[in-house]
């Protein structure tokens, strides 16, 4: 085969240039599953599944969210300008606009993350682990479209170096890497990721009369192409329509309850995702489809997903019952129409490394995420969405939950052993008694 010959030819020397060899090895193992065979003293045959395949299936499950998110970036932009109110109207413009925003974020997040990963792999002399494949696909979906790239670079650097490599690499981290990078932005540069202004991209301000911000890609590159086909093009002179605020359903709900939300957005719109928000979080049906795919393939834990749903629902019911603020009175089932609950449930909470590892533990873990997340969402004025913090919070507690589940298993076994020992003592005693009788 030609490709394998090519690979053999360009293989760098492992001793002379370890970094190059690690990179080479990383790419080679993507093209070819290596010819490694099982060793004696273990199984002679291995399951066809490996970590690469696992990770790529998570990325596949994200694809619908990617497609929708890309178009929605454009949709929100044009909605602010009062153009193309139907989601599929002006699709070429929305797609072009979305791609201009999302491609740099995707490329930067993968290049930075993988470069760090490669460097550490070379330094430690092991193969490149696949963990970042998923992280690199998740990060673009959980940031606002206008995130400055240098902030993104800083956050990924922080998350991968401090959050993962410092703990020993893939499989050893305590906190979810994608969320760690987001939380870094959240606390270090809060104005870029919270408030009403940031979720709709490409505007000088989120108020009436503001103008769109276009660059060469819009007015030069794409407008030229659209010109050839004689279709609509980007219009730099448009202005943001009257009454536009750019507020997300959650911030509206915080201020005025469910009525305030429904004044601006319909439930249909919120469910299908044509609302401002992080890039990948808005379209619930597509995310649920991804979640179902993960569950059907046995990759994502249904226990975590289900118990998180229950936890959030129960807490929302409690809020309904309490009803001390307008947000608390939002009917519990409508809580799921807003914000990023489903995305967090499907792709963040189920990360197997940072979640609990025991079967029973997963139920508790999911439940508490649902509970804590809903409390943060509704009660905390500073953060109108709670899942990121809730998941990171429960990541820290996952080992504790596991500890108690393991202790339960150990106690069961101990009780069994003690019972048995007691039985042995009892039979010995009877035997002695019988012998005494005989004498």
């Amino acid at each position, binding site marked *: 085969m030609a490709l394998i010959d090519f690979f053999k030819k360009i293989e760098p020397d492992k001793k002379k240039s370890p970094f190059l060899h690690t990179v080479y090895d990383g790419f080679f193992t993507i093209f070819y599953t290596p010819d490694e065979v099982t060793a004696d003293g273990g199984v002679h045959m291995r399951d066809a*599944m490996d970590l690469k395949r696992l990770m790529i299936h998570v990325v596949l499950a994200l694809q619908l969210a990617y497609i929708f998110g890309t178009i929605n970036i454009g949709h929100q932009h044009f909605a602010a300008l009062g153009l193309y109110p139907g989601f599929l109207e002006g699709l070429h413009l929305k797609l072009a606009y979305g791609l201009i925003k999302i491609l740099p974020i995707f490329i930067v997040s993968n290049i930075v993350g993988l470069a760090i990963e490669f460097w550490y792999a070379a330094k430690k002399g092991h193969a490149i682990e696949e*963990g970042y494949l998923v992280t690199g696909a998740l990060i673009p979906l959980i940031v606002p479209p206008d995130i400055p790239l240098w902030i993104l670079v800083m956050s990924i650097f922080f998350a991968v170096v401090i959050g993962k490599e410092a703990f020993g690499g893939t499989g050893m981290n305590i906190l979810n890497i994608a969320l760690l990078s987001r939380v870094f932005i959240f606390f270090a540069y809060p104005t870029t990721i919270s408030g009403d202004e940031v979720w709709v991209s490409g505007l000088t301000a989120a108020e009436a009369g503001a103008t769109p911000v276009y660059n060469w890609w819009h007015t030069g590159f794409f407008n030229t192409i659209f010109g050839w086909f004689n279709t609509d093009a980007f219009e730099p002179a448009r202005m943001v329509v009257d009454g536009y605020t750019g507020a997300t359903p959650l911030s509206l709900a915080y201020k005025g309850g469910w009525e305030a939300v429904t004044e601006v957005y319909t439930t249909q719109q919120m469910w299908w995702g044509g609302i401002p928000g992080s890039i990948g979080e808005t379209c619930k049906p597509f995310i649920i489809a991804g979640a179902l795919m993960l569950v059907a393939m046995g990759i994502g834990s249904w226990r975590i997903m289900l118990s998180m749903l229950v936890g959030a629902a129960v807490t929302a019911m409690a809020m309904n019952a309490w009803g001390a603020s307008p947000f608390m009175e939002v009917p519990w089932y409508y809580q799921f129409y807003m914000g990023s609950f489903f995305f967090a449930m499907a792709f963040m909470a189920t990360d197997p490394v940072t979640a609990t590892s025991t079967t029973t533990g997963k139920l508790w873990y999911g439940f508490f995420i649902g509970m804590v997340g809903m409390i943060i969402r509704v009660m905390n004025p500073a953060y109108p969405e709670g899942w990121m913090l809730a998941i990171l919070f429960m990541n820290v507690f996952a080992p504790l939950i596991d500890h108690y589940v393991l202790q339960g298993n150990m106690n069961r076994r101990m009780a069994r052993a003690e019972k048995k020992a007691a039985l042995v003592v009892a039979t010995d005693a009877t035997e002695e008694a019988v012998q005494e009788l005989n004498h």
Partner: protein
Amino acid sequence: MLKRRFSSLLSILFILLFSISASAQTSAGDSTNYMTYGIVAIAALLFLAVITFVSDNLLMIQAKRMGVDEDGSNYSIFPKGKDNTEGDFVEDAVTHKDGEMHNLKQGFDIPLQGVAENVIANDIQVNTFAVQPTNFKGISPIPKVVVAVGDEVKAGDHLFFDKKNPDVKYVAPVSGEIIAINRGAKRAITEVVILADKEQSFRSFDVPNYETCSRKELVDFLLDSGAWVHFTQRPFGVTPATTDVPENIFISTFDTAPLAPDLDFIIDGNGEAFQRGLDVLTKLTTGHVHLGMDGRTGPKNPYVSPVYKEAKNVRKHWFNGLHPIGNVGVQIHHVDPIAPSSKVWTLSVQDVLTIGDLFLIGQYNAKRTIALTGAELGKPRYVETYIGAKIEDLLKGQIEGENTRIIAGDVLSGRTKTMDGYLNFNDDQITVMAEGNEVAFLGWLNPFKGKPSVSKTYPSGLFGDMKYRADTNTNGEHRAFVVTGQYEKVLPMDIMPQALMKSILVQDFEKMEGLGIHELLEEDIAICEFVCTSKQPLQKILRQGLDFVQDQG
């Protein structure tokens, strides 16, 4: 118990919440105040419950510290309910035939090509046999050999013994001439090789009457005749010490490993020897002899040999499920789990036959029916030979594939052998499989791989009865533990293998013991190693742990 109490508390809370929230939405706006009271009341209740639980625990801790709870009296403020130590493990046992039926869900049968056909090959003649001291765990590397090259031995004559345990004799499986005593690294003895006679002759024994003789006489006879080393003692899988008395003896009458021999076929016509063997075994234990019976339903295996069905003086336990359900370790777990202080013996069906023959006809009969299996063989079938048969004699001219690997045992826990190697002491199977030392283009992305997998990311699972050709490729590289819960899905035991493996890697003795390392041997965990996405060497890790625990204990 605590869990049940807690969950009932939770469900009551849940119902309360639901009703309050429902009424909050239906009633008019003014009810908010009333709801607030409701929530405060629930919070107060919860607070009270927490206080009660904590103080209850403190009370019990105090009782324990003062040592007043040793008589088993209840120092908790809650009444003591029925103690449920069985755990929440999924299993429903119903009375079935003449024993308990265990239906277990977890497990995986690897569908492979090359099952042995139920015929005995008569064109295969094995001439050379070897006894390998390395087959026996715990024996010192240089045992005392009592024969020399050129000596003539009969089947049952002593070959060597361990200087630490001089009473445990290792004997010749066949009669013939000693043609070599091979040594390996550090002069350790690896093989005592015998060229078999055409006509077998047997050492004559003065067989005691097992029904009337004392246990000591029986044990001495078993030691002298070489039958003792057929016992494997759990925990750790060692040959028992001469003073050990087992709680129970377990025998599995079916094997679910990939391509495993059909023990119903092997036992055919050996009913008498089998029953005699069982009768002898009952004299050795303070408990019972337990038979693990094949209770699989459906097309899997409807036939159970009458020899097993009609066996007397034993307790039968029927098992229905997937591999490793046929492993004796799994069966013990469901019948009478091994505690750290336990001593339980296991042996295979053919070992029982050897012991039975000893008491029935007075000969050490090391006859073994070996399954030659694997897709690389022309005709997978059975061979009748003796313990320690030479691989070359068994497989010469049989292998059709090129670039193959020969495994003594099954593909999960067998050992690699070369043509000039010998079968191990406990083997009843040879598997020949393809070496998979080839790269596969985009192998990890390929939806149809032609390889078995538990993963549902392969649509091949949809096509029912597909059988695969085994190869040795790892299908990916070694990685850190990432996926959780996958081992539990294939191990039908109340054990958490991943937590156990991690505790072994950090040498946490108490956790290893607590998480049940005593209940496992390598073969039980092998299916977990097969499914491992991170390609971790679980059997090796487990052996490290077992050795560590054995040293410490």
